């Protein structure tokens, strides 16, 4: 039976999660050089259009449709066939099925958008569109099915992922690594200075992400109840604490607390708490976030040593942060918080940590391999990268015939 309170909750949360992707566009857009800001924003913005169409046609069906051997959904729900306005028996049975579908759509949208930070400032727009099309179909949908789909094998295995630590963050972070390695460095990387062109834009994006993330995590309770409130609180607390620790780590390391550091920390905290949100208490969230700020800062700093050019640190924040979060869920999860969850290592259940570890491992391998395959394919056919001349003049003019600012 449809509950008005729950339906309101999921619809508004869907709107909030939708708003995150333009937020991401600003978060990323502010960090690139001004000649690439529109192209960077566009890579997030157009994903909303493209993935929505994919999702309605086949993506949702592959992810949540009738299970096929635990690995993927069937195409029975192609074009949302049978996905109506009354609740689904399998998912969130107090809200219209389409409400659940559109809430999930917003997750399917932002995940590939996250990857774009890795190959910012150098990818060909046409190749980019095809990449998203293939990645969404062959990486996101199956993965979502494994973890959240009725009958999905990772879910059945007992892996805990409240709002998408593996499906969203690890998958995008690992794919980002693959992409950064394959598409190689930006021209002048390490020699020229890549200074963010508009940090207030990045902070604005961060604020929108934080705001939307409440819908992302609390909404994943799929009903408006204590669990939702708990997830809301842990989300906020982890983000706050990570913003502080990243800033402090940088302060100690470089002698200055930066605004971008605080913003990056906030996002790292949100990433880390995502899988844990509904399974841990506020104090655990404080610790998960606090450590996320430090771990992700370390990962971002390590990048320069490792020498790949992950332009906007998708690996360091989403890959590493998501992994930490998934494992942390195996440490801090407590049935006292969520009876439908499980206990983590700290509450006497070492097995859970092992399950979490497996789900991370599986996700990493699957996402990495698939992304390599897709990108190789595109590289050999149409080519991934703009030519040097275009890269120097910037993607805004060469890919889109636009300039961002005429001040």
């Amino acid at each position, binding site marked *: 039976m449809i509950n008005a309170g729950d339906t309101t909750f999921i619809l508004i949360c869907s709107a909030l999660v939708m708003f995150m992707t333009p937020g991401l566009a600003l978060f990323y857009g502010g960090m690139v050089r001004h000649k690439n800001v529109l192209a960077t924003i566009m890579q997030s913005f157009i994903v909303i259009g493209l993935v929505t169409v994919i999702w309605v046609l086949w993506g949702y069906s592959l992810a949540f449709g009738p299970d096929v051997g635990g690995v993927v959904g069937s195409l029975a729900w192609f074009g949302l066939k049978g996905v109506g306005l009354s609740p689904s028996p399998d998912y969130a049975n107090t809200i219209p099925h389409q409400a659940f579908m559109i809430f999930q759509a917003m997750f399917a949208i932002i995940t590939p958008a996250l990857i774009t930070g890795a190959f910012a400032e150098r990818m060909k727009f046409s190749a980019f569109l095809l990449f998203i099309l293939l990645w969404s179909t062959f990486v996101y949908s199956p993965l979502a099915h494994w973890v959240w789909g009725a009958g999905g094998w990772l879910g059945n295995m007992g892996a805990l992922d409240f709002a998408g630590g593996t499906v969203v963050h690890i998958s995008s972070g690992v794919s980002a690594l693959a992409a950064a390695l394959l598409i190689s460095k930006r021209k002048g990387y390490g020699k020229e*200075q890549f200074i963010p062109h508009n940090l207030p834009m990045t902070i604005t994006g961060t604020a929108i992400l934080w705001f939307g993330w409440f819908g992302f995590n609390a909404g994943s309770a799929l009903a408006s109840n204590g669990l939702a409130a708990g997830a809301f609180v842990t989300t906020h607390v982890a983000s706050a604490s990570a913003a502080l620790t990243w800033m402090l780590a940088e302060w100690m390391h470089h002698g200055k607390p930066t605004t971008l550091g605080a913003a990056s920390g906030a996002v790292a905290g949100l990433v880390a708490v995502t899988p844990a949100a509904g399974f841990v208490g506020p104090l655990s969230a404080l610790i998960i976030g606090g450590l996320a700020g430090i771990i992700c800062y370390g990962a971002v700093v390590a990048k320069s040593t490792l020498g790949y050019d992950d332009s906007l640190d998708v690996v360091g924040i989403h890959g590493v942060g998501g992994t930490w979060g998934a494992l942390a869920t195996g440490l801090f999860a407590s049935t006292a918080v969520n009876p439908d969850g499980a206990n983590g290592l700290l509450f006497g259940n070492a097995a859970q940590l092992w399950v979490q570890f497996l789900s991370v491992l599986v996700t990493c391998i699957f996402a990495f391999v698939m992304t390599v395959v897709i990108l190789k394919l595109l590289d050999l056919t149409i080519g991934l990268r703009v030519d040097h001349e275009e890269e120097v003049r910037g993607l805004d003019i060469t890919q889109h015939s636009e300039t961002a600012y005429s001040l």
Partner: protein
Amino acid sequence: MKKIEAIIKPFKLDDVKEGLTEIGVRGMSVSEIKGFGRQKGHTEIYRGAEYTVDFVPKLKLEVVVGAEMAPQVVELIQEKAKTGSIGDGKIFVTSLEEVIRIRTGERGKEAI
């Protein structure tokens, strides 16, 4: 006619402008430049990476005056723009062959 170009610290503009007006200079043009020199720039930190930005924002003042007035103008700018610390800037003097006021077509001194 002389053209006096002065590169100064931005926050000194008002003092210099006042000074010039007082001694009867009726116009000038100002543009923003990046200066490189003995004065060193600053460090910026992004995502834990340090960048040294070695230019310093300066203002470039261009004042055209009659030859006889030039020394006085140079002196005044030097005095007003001076802080005594590295980076105060330079003054360059060139001679102009001709000056025209677009509005009236006047030439030479009348044009200034």
